[in-house]
């Protein structure tokens, strides 16, 4: 069973090998130039860099990340349902309405967050 995943391991190993080999080869073959203080400073369209690079950024990005986690877990919960859905139906087990209720709860959450203006980027 686990040997089915052997090609995946090989593929990842080869990809890592290629990445390291390409970068190493590029480092060996690449030309060298002297460094200077301008070359060692961040590119800001020719101006001298000002302020810190990792500046503060909008809190919206954090909110998007948190919402993503909630909804991604929803998707993960739905995947097993998708797998067994037809089997359950053919055996007349109740599955449609429980899952619709589950989705309803999440849709209410989505509507709530939209009404709260979480994703109003222009405000």
């Amino acid at each position: 069973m686990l040997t089915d995943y052997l090609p995946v391991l090989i593929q990842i190993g080869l990809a890592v090998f290629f990445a390291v080999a390409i970068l190493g080869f590029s480092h060996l073959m690449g030309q060298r130039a002297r460094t200077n203080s301008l070359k060692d400073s961040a590119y800001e369209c020719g101006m001298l860099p000002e302020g810190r690079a990792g500046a503060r950024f909008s809190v919206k990005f954090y909110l998007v990340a948190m919402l993503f986690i909630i909804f991604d877990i929803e998707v993960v919960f739905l995947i097993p349902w998708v797998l067994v859905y037809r089997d359950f139906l053919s055996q007349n087990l109740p599955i449609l309405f429980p899952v619709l209720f589950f989705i309803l709860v999440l849709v209410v959450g989505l509507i709530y967050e939209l009404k709260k203006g979480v994703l109003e980027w222009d405000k």
Partner: protein
Amino acid sequence: MPSEVLPLIIKALIVIGAVMTMAGYAVLMERKIAGWIQGRPGPNRTQIPILGSIPVIGTFLTRLGVFQPAADGLKFLFKEDALPGHVNKFYYVLAPMIAFVPAMATMTVLPFGQYTGADGVTVPIVLANLDIGILFILAVSSLGVYGIILGGWAANSKYPFLGGIRASAQMISYELAMALSILPVFMWFGGTLNLHAVVQGQYQVWTIFAQPVSALIFLVALFAETNRLPFDMPESETDLVAGYNTEYGAFKFGLFFVAEYTHIIIGSGVFVALFLGGWTLPFVPIPDGIAGAIISIGIFLAKVFALVFFFMWIRWTLPRFRYDQVMNLGWKKLLPLAIANLVVYAIIIALIENLG
């Protein structure tokens, strides 16, 4: 057990080589199509000394720009491998690799052909025929965003930083719609996540006709996930210079580039397998044996490149969205649409099962 591992390594090498070559030629294709759409010739000068001077063929190939990817690759290789003083050196070097490895690992479970042996058993041509198929693709391909974020952050510069932040929010937003849009497909084919099973279910009717809305959502999300125009927020040349790879050069930039085009090719492959019937053509049986294997791979690649052409056509046709428009489309339109789509197909399948 080296005797079992060696063929696997050779197969993996062939596939990686093929996909990296395709990524190189996709770049050429992009430039040629851009030229064609904008009424200019595109790359048509690059020559290889002996091959390029053959009277008719050499000129033709030169005009076609066939040698351009080789020149691009060599140029990546011989440029100064700059490591600027202001970057966070370890992560700066690590980021291109992190972008590259998931792009290459995704293709492991993507079947691209079939082989029917003498015993009549049809097996897919794939590196690893896993039952979790699409789950693996979703999981691994989304790891690529780490490379972009890390690249943007490690460059320690404002434009890459903004590009990385934008990329992360955009890619996680569209991942939801993407994952939700393909659930009805797997529900339709009855409880499997294996891509080979989905392709085999499409001999008569391609899924794109049975589930056009799923296909549309998946396609839009695919554009966003691969950072293609009109969703290329992470790069957006006009406002962020070059986004997350502003501070990169030589093959460190090249790895990001190869990863991006590999994502496009693999993403097109997934779309073809899920919605366009994979390596099947309607009502045309695929012969047994090696001939069938070659034909099926050919059909699959033709469909993939048709879709890659579509990607490029869109890129040179549409302008870029504004960032708030991108996020609105993802959260307020595609996500509710994907949920509605899922519910509708759940009800349809319930009706079919109860009536039939």
